[in-house]
């Protein structure tokens, strides 16, 4: 086959590439909202009695790692199956999401978890994820 990755994705999703992509992208967005809550607890902006900052930070990282894997999987499916040509705003937002993800990982590696940039990169990443979802999965589901 000319495009082995495209064929593999088609096989893995049993021909339902769009549907699987929409489901995964929606899971990413839902978990991204949860990430905001975890970050707020982690930074001490919200202080519930039953949930402390340390466990919230740990959970934020664990969920973030999972989100990274899911987002990259969705991006690979999107780029290999649909390409950039018809993406429009969705393609632009998607590329910016990957850039913001890379920036966030870099900010943690270079500046540590106390980097003042981290919350802003996180908020930007969430906004871009939302925009990417709205221009594809949201559109498909009739939300946007």
């Amino acid at each position, binding site marked *: 086959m000319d495009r082995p990755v495209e064929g593999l994705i088609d096989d893995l999703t049993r021909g339902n590439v*769009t549907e699987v992509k929409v*489901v995964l992208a929606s899971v990413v967005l839902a978990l991204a909202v949860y990430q905001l809550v975890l970050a707020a607890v982690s930074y001490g902006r919200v202080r519930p009695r039953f949930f402390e900052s340390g466990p919230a930070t740990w959970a934020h990282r664990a969920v973030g790692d999972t989100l990274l894997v899911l987002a990259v999987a969705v991006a690979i499916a999107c780029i290999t199956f649909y390409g950039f040509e018809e993406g429009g705003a969705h393609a632009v937002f998607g590329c910016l999401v990957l850039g913001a993800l890379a920036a966030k990982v870099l900010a943690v590696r270079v500046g540590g978890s106390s980097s003042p940039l981290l919350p802003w990169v996180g908020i930007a990443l969430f906004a871009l994820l939302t925009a990417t979802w709205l221009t594809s*999965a949201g559109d498909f589901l009739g939300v946007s």
Partner: protein
Amino acid sequence: MRPPSQMTQIVGSILVALVIAAVAVAVVTAHFGPTSTAKLEAREDAIDARVDAREERAKAREDRREEAEKRREDSGSG
């Protein structure tokens, strides 16, 4: 009231993440569920049409490039 142990909090927060993921999957899948076979087929056809159109454009681009190269070679040799 004392907060639960850190391990309990971590396990609880991960369980909440799993529940959120499961609910998101259920809600979106339910959205697909009741669609009729005809609708699904129409959607598949639309996707196929987009893929075909993309391949046609790629082929046309390739042809144009080959033609341009051929013209360049012709003008270079002539």
